């Protein structure tokens, strides 16, 4: 099948940047194809509890936008899909998109959840980072868009229970992958990031029960998360009274090959410290850091507030050397130098949170080869003049937005997405010669 479109734009990646770019372009009346590799759009922002520095509910900002994408007549939402092939040039790209089989008919599934309730097989829940299970047939999270279930064939045993219970006959074990061929004028890449694998910093003991990542904490503190919003210790389920945050885990670190600053960790750690305090007032919180990079609007004020009597977060200037578990209690002892005083310290905590940095997606390399665009030495996508035009990739007609271009927070990702959308629309409307 061949769909002819004059003014279409392809957007790869359905996180907040891809969503925003899609909505901006659709509002201009342009045809948008939004391709997302996972079963739902939303990206990492959907996993977050609150945003910094305003402590707004992340889902409350994001979910309406996701729904808007679904409702927009100009947006063709292609979830569980991947870009296979791109040819042509600016103004006239030909794109092959692989639609992976969901084994559930998208047209008829109503998202009633009966299939999942009947499914006997449990698998790790990606959305909750494995902190609780999901079924082999699943919706990634309650607000997922589309509200369509997906069968994970890595776990499904084809017992037939879901098929038997589905009232609309949506289950189709024999669904095949399909290829969709489209033509678009321009492309926006907004494939986002992955979080740094904390296991690579062995001295920070991520294998221990009571050492978790910042993103895991987001799920724990979220009311719809696996613990209903209670930050607990994974070893015994108790509420931690002493919590430590370790900054720059996987960032500004030659040893793991990431020399860059991930730009969000200082602020998300401060935010999480404040949130923990709001949940459990009598928690002592220490943030071990090299320096606090509170560079954005309202950030410094937020940092000051976290330090103030109201929240009483303790900031220790010093990168942690090592930590270890006390086997009897599961508590963690942290060794670090307080570089302000020059004192070596060994402090005990109930819970340790690793403020992991952002790294390029593992499949960014494949996309880079597919599209022939430039990557910087850290693996983020870049154009010829990143200092002036960060949205422009090295290939005419292909634009970049969000963390795929380099670590940034939500407002910056959204702003860049808007910029990329404008640039992409000019090419889509006027053709290659801009």
């Amino acid at each position, binding site marked *: 099948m061949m769909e002819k479109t004059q003014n279409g734009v392809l957007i790869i990646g359905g996180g907040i940047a891809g969503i925003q770019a899609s909505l901006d372009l659709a509002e201009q009346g342009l045809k948008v194809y939004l391709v997302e590799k996972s079963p739902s759009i939303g990206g990492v922002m959907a996993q977050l509890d609150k945003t910094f520095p305003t402590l707004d509910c992340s889902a409350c900002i994001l979910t309406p936008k996701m729904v808007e994408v679904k409702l927009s007549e100009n947006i063709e939402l292609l979830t569980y899909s991947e870009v296979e092939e791109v040819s042509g040039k600016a103004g006239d790209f030909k794109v092959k998109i692989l639609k992976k089989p969901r084994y559930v008919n998208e047209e008829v599934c109503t998202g009633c959840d009966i299939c999942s309730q009947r499914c006997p097989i449990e698998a790790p829940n990606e959305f909750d980072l494995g902190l609780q299970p999901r079924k082999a047939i699943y919706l990634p999270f309650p607000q997922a868009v589309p509200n369509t279930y997906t069968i994970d064939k890595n776990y499904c045993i084809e017992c037939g229970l879901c098929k038997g219970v589905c009232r609309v006959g949506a289950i189709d074990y024999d669904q095949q992958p399909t290829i969709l061929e489209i033509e678009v004028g321009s492309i926006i890449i907004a494939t986002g990031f992955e979080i740094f694998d904390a296991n690579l910093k062995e001295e920070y003991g991520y294998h221990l029960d009571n050492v978790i990542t910042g993103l895991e904490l987001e799920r724990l503190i979220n009311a719809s998360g696996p613990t209903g919003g209670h930050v607990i210790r994974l070893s015994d389920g108790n509420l931690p009274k002493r919590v430590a945050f370790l900054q720059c885990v996987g960032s500004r670190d030659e040893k793991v090959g990431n020399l860059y600053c991930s730009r969000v960790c200082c602020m998300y750690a401060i935010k999480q410290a404040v949130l923990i305090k709001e949940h459990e007032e009598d928690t002592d919180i220490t943030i071990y850091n090299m320096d606090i990079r509170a560079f954005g609007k309202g950030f410094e004020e937020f940092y000051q507030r976290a330090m103030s009597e109201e929240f009483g977060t303790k900031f220790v200037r010093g990168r942690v*050397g090592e930590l270890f578990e006390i086997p009897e209690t599961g508590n963690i002892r942290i060794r670090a130098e307080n570089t302000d005083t*020059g004192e070596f310290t060994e402090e005990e905590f109930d819970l340790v949170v690793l403020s992991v940095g952002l790294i390029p997606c593992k499949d960014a390399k494949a996309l880079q080869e597919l599209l022939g665009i430039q990557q910087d030495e850290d693996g983020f996508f870049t154009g010829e003049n990143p200092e002036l035009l960060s949205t422009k990739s090295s290939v005419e007609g292909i634009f970049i937005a969000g963390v795929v271009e380099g670590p940034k927070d939500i407002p910056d990702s959204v702003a860049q997405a808007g910029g990329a959308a404008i640039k992409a629309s000019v090419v889509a409307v006027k053709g290659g010669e801009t």
Partner: protein
Amino acid sequence: MTEEKVKPFKVEEPLRIARLDPTFKGEIMEEPNAELIKYCFQCGTCTGSCIATRFENNFNPRRIIKAALLGLKELVLSSDVLWICTLCYQCSERCPQGVKISEFMEVLRHLAVKYGYIHPSLRLQAEAILRSGRVYEDEDTANVMREDVSLPPALSVDMDEVSKILNRTGISNILLREEGDR
């Protein structure tokens, strides 16, 4: 039993510029591994990882790097703390800036020796090697013990050859020269 006291490693305040030796940094950086201290961003990972610091708070690798970069030559080279680093490399392995701190400590020891601050125990060790080619010289006692466990007598060192090569490296001159200096 009284505990040996380690002299505090303290930068006198106010820091007098006249006391700083701007050439010290250059002298250190002549050694390829030590040169990396220019990348130090004073994060404290080394100190936080250091076993010597854990038992002797006067030993602080981060501060030693800072003092060296400032040019506090005498403070650094005359300090007791130079000799309590175990060279376990924990700091070098973990430094997020790739500074080889253990290697830097070794270069400081070489410079300390050069300027007459050799530690007596290391002098004794080096002298033993100059005499016998190895650290321990109680060959007769050892051989009695070795016989007990059915080991052959300890091999003898070819001192003729060892003396020839050590004469060329000039280590005996280093040891001699220092005696007068201190």
